[in-house]
């Protein structure tokens, strides 16, 4: 898994690629929390995610909660059919704005 962070004054874009599973989810959670510690809005680019499981979803939820607690918003800027399906299955799609709704 790789995480790329592009930080702006009001928003931070985090691009995640690779497999997000029980082996990598803790690293993802730490990277996301570090990226949003300045209180910016978070834009997620998950278009490079090849695999995602409940551990990875949990990391996304923890980050989303941290951003919202600071008054920010999380936007799912790019995704894949697999990511979209898992978010929908678990009802987590409602937690994230999509790029069309931001």
């Amino acid at each position, binding site marked *: 898994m790789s995480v790329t962070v592009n930080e702006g004054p009001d928003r931070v874009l985090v691009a995640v690629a690779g497999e997000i599973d029980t082996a990598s989810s803790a690293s993802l959670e730490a990277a996301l929390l570090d990226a949003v510690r300045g209180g910016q809005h978070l834009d997620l680019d998950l278009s490079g995610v090849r695999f995602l499981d*409940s551990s990875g979803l*949990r990391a996304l939820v923890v980050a989303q909660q941290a951003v919202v607690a600071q008054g920010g918003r999380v936007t799912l800027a790019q995704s894949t059919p697999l990511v979209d399906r898992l978010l929908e299955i678990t009802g987590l799609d409602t937690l994230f704005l999509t790029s069309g709704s931001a």
Partner: protein
Amino acid sequence: LVAEDDGATTVSMVFPPQPRLVRMARLASSALAAVGGADVDTIDDIKIAVDEVCASLIEAGNGSDVRVALSLAGERFEIVGATSGGLDVDPERFELSRQILRAVAERHELTMADGDVRFTVTCLLPPPEPDGA
């Protein structure tokens, strides 16, 4: 270990409870499902189911090895995973895991007995399209 018996092909694995090894189980399940003629979407669902079983067993176990058997018999793909321990897992992740299993599997069952935690998950492969379809 790969075995064939009564029309079923079974891949059995025993591995230490290390998260990085779950990928190995995903790859094995993908290969076995492909042998059974599963399409890409079904293979994805099976990989997800195997991952969820292994992730929960690693989290739940007491450090004992994780035992996984993947069986393909006709259109039926069964995942049986077990380890020694209880079910001391992150409840929020585990609820997500159960929601995922409900969606990707035909049925799934969790049993705890004699100090073991055991998941049994059944996925169905779509029937092959008739010739000429």
